[in-house]
Structure formats: structure tokens, C-alpha cells
């Protein structure tokens, strides 16, 4: 770099119509080819259209689902289970992770079972939850909660443990109390890791709700997935599958945006 006055060079002038980058072009082309193949393969007799459906049919099904089919009611059922499970997980796991990250005794006591539960797919607990809580919304909330809680605990814990001891010493030199050190040094330092945990937890909670509904339920997006699966309505089944993935993607993107804001002070 040549000599500039400050570390912030002026942004380069932007073209009115930005040319799509090479990678974007390739991505768009590959998606287009995929849809094209999907559309023509059944018509050419390459695959059985009953099993694969077609993009145009899925689009038509989407319109049907949107106007009739109680889409909003099912979405609300799933969303409620997700929101309650995920919210409870946040309330429990962030404080717990913070305590475990600061207290060595608590960590020695709870780390092995926590790691085991973090690694194991928490869905294996679904049958137990159904026995305990019945086939209503409570067991889906429980599974969403269990899916979300461990990634947040583990990442919060890691964030607290990676605290910079030099910063703690600096704070103490200015007379910081233990509480000051905790609120001004440890927690802000752990925040980026906590948000990583929150992001990983979204996918797990969505999975918990949907699989819970696939298994046993009377309503919800997962319930609709099994219903249309059983009825061989691949077009509608795909509409619901896409709705679920759009939801997960949007939530994750949202948390990523928060993450990016927090990480501004930490380049790379």
C-alpha cells in the first residue's frame, strides 16, 4: 500500500449495474440447470414423475397451500414450539454456560455429561419425552429445547474460558471488583462465542420440532410433511419442506448479521 493518511481508504466507486461475480454466475447457472433437468426428466420418461414431481407442479402446489390448506395454522403450531423451546434454551443455557465457564468445580462436575449430550443427537430422547409429556406440543418444545440448549452452553463456556488474563489483570490494576471484571471483561469477551452457539442452536431446534411432529402430532409443518408423504403428494410435501428450510435459513442469516456486527472489532 502506498502512503495514505489514515487506515481507512475511500471505498472504490461503485458501478450502477454491478456485474455478477464469477462465483455467483456459476451458482445461478447450476441452480437453473437443476430446475430444468427436474422439469424435463419426468417428461422424457427418465424418472417416474409420481416420485419426483416437477418445479411447475410444486409452484402450483405452493399457491394452493398458500390460499387453502391451513398453512398459517400449521406454521403457527410449529413456530410456537420452536420459539418456546429455543427461548427457554436461551434463558437456561447462557447463565449456565457463564457459570460453568467461570467455576472450575462446576465444570469438573458437569462437563462430561454435557459433552456427551452435546455430541449425541438429542432426538434420541424424543420417545422418552413423549412418554413423559404426551403427544401434545410439550414434547416438541422439550425436544427443541434439548436440541438448542447444548450448543449454547458449550459455546458460552468456551467463550468464558478463553478470557484474556492480561485484560483481567489490567482491569484489576484499576481497582475493578470481581463483578466489574465479570461484566466488563469476561461477558463482553464471550459474547461472540455465545452468538455462535445461538446460531448453531437454531438448526437443532428446528430439527427437533419438525422431527417431533413427524413422529406424533395432530398439527404443525412436520405433521403436514408426514400427511402428504403418506398420500404421495410429493408436490405439497416439497412446499412444506421448502417452507421449513426458508425459515431456518432466515433465522440463521439473522443471527449471522448480529454476529458480524459483534465481530467488527475482531477482523478476519
Amino acid at each position, binding site marked *: 500500500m502506498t502512503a495514505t493518511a489514515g487506515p481507512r481508504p475511500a471505498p472504490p466507486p461503485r458501478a450502477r449495474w454491478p456485474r455478477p461475480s464469477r462465483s455467483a454466475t456459476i451458482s445461478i447457472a447450476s441452480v437453473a440447470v437443476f430446475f430444468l433437468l427436474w422439469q424435463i426428466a419426468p417428461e422424457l420418461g427418465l424418472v417416474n414423475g409420481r416420485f419426483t414431481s416437477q418445479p411447475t407442479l410444486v409452484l402450483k402446489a405452493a399457491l394452493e397451500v398458500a390460499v387453502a390448506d391451513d398453512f398459517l395454522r400449521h406454521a403457527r403450531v410449529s413456530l410456537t414450539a420452536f420459539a418456546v423451546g429455543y427461548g427457554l434454551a436461551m434463558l437456561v443455557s447462557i447463565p449456565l454456560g457463564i457459570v460453568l465457564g467461570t467455576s472450575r468445580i462446576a465444570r469438573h462436575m458437569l462437563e462430561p455429561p454435557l459433552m456427551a449430550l452435546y455430541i449425541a443427537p438429542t432426538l434420541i430422547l424424543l420417545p422418552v419425552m413423549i412418554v413423559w409429556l404426551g403427544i401434545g406440543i410439550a414434547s416438541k418444545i422439550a425436544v427443541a429445547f434439548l436440541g438448542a440448549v447444548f450448543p449454547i452452553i458449550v459455546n458460552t463456556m468456551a467463550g468464558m474460558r478463553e478470557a484474556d488474563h492480561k485484560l483481567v489483570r*489490567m482491569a484489576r*490494576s*484499576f481497582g475493578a471488583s470481581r463483578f466489574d471484571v465479570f461484566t*466488563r471483561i469476561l461477558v463482553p469477551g464471550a459474547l461472540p462465542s455465545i452468538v455462535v452457539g445461538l446460531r448453531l442452536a437454531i438448526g437443532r431446534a428446528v430439527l427437533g420440532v419438525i422431527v417431533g411432529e413427524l413422529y406424533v402430532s395432530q398439527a404443525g409443518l412436520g405433521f403436514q410433511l408426514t400427511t402428504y408423504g403418506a398420500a404421495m403428494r410429493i408436490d405439497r410435501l416439497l412446499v412444506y419442506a421448502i417452507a421449513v428450510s426458508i425459515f431456518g435459513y432466515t433465522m440463521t442469516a439473522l443471527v449471522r448479521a448480529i454476529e458480524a456486527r459483534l465481530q467488527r*472489532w475482531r477482523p478476519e
Partner: protein
Amino acid sequence: MAQIEVRDLQITYDTPKTGERFTAVEGVTLSVEAGEFVTIVGASGCGKSTLLLAVAGLVPVSGGTIAIDGRTVTAPGPDRAVVFQEASLLPWRSVLGNVKFGLEMQRWTRDDRTERAMRFIRMVGLANFADYHPHQLSGGMRQRVNIARALAVDPKVLLMDEPFGALDAQTREVMGDELLTIWEREKKTALFVTHDIDEAIFLADRVVVMGRNPGHIKEIMRVDIPRPRHEDVLDSDLFNGYRKRLRAHLAEDMASMHLVEGAQA
């Protein structure tokens, strides 16, 4: 009575891995007058940083006493501020936020904090960088923030632990110059640890030379170079004399270190 009184100080601690008791500092007695600039120089492992951090109240004392204005040191206090070797800035706070940190800890009022922080940011020449974050600054700029943060809380004693140790030679000289200018204006008592002989002489009213195994004071040397000082004194005969004397001390330590290492090999 002197402002800093260190009497027969002993500092020992358990090394975490082997569990052995290690004596870092032994039999250190030192008084520093108010407004005096004292540098501590010695080879690595001579306990010079440990001594400084003990005065800061960050390292527990095992024997002897440290007192500031007659009050025994047991913990950090608002009468002292430390400039650390690594800038130790909070990466999520701006320059202004970092300089305000000490003021927040010592419960200055909100209005005072910003005003005072800005005053010292200007003093170290970073007025245009108050909103920058540490990762956007050079090493020298970060150390300026480190110094501004310490000065802002208005301590009587400024404790500096090799603050320019990680900087390149040129930046180091400039920073030393600026530090003296600020110190002459602010009239703080200064204790400054370094391993750089020239830096130790250039800044000091007195240089404390420390030796190893265990850390102890070998000599306290008065520097009679009139202030304000400029870089040309580095070439004077007087300065050369001081330099030779300190080098002889450090060479002695280096020799004993090689003997020990040779014996182990």
C-alpha cells in the same frame, strides 16, 4: 518520607507445573521520592517486572513491606496506575472507551470521564483516532492509548512494565521522548521497567540494576544529566560512562547464565 518505600521485599511463588517454591525477588529495599523517575533494568528473569507488579498490588508479597505515602500496599489502588507491556486494550471498545475504562472503575462521573479521557487522548496525539478500535491502530498508537488510560485516572505513581518493549527501535525513541515531555508536565512519580540500557539511562533520575537467582538489587545509579534531555545526550561522554557501567553489570549476569546452562548440558 519517600513516596514509594520498599523494605526487605521478598516474593516467592509455587511454579504451577513442578510445584517447586520459586523465589523471584529477595531482600529488595528501595525508596522513590515524589516526582522522581526511577528505571529498573536487568536481564530477563531478574524479577524486575515482579517487583513492579508487587508495587501495583497485583502480586502478593511474601516478606517485607511495600508502602505508598506510608500506607502498606495490599491491593491495587487509585494512587497507582500501570502501563502494561502489552497494551491490554479492550478490543471491543474504541480508543475513547478504553481510556475511559479506568475512570469508570474508579467511579468518576459520566461527564468528567469523557472530558478527561479526551484530554489525555489529545495529549498522546490521538485526537483524530478517538473512535478507532485497537485493531485499527499500530503498536505505537496502542501503547499511547495504554499510557493515556493510566494517566487519565490521575495516579500519584505511574508504574510502567517495559511499555516500549514490543516496539521497533525508532518508535521506541520517539515514545521515550514524548513520555519525558508528558512526565515533566504532569509531575508523576514514575517507576519504569526495561531491559534496554539506553532507555533506562535516558529516562531516569536513578537507575536500579537488578541481578538474578534470586532477583536482587545490584546497584542504584544516579543519572546526573540535566533535563530537559534530548537525543544528542546519547553520544555524550557522561552517557557513555553510565552505559559502560550498566553493561558491565549485565555482562556479568549473562556470563553466569551461560555457566549454568553449560553445567546443565
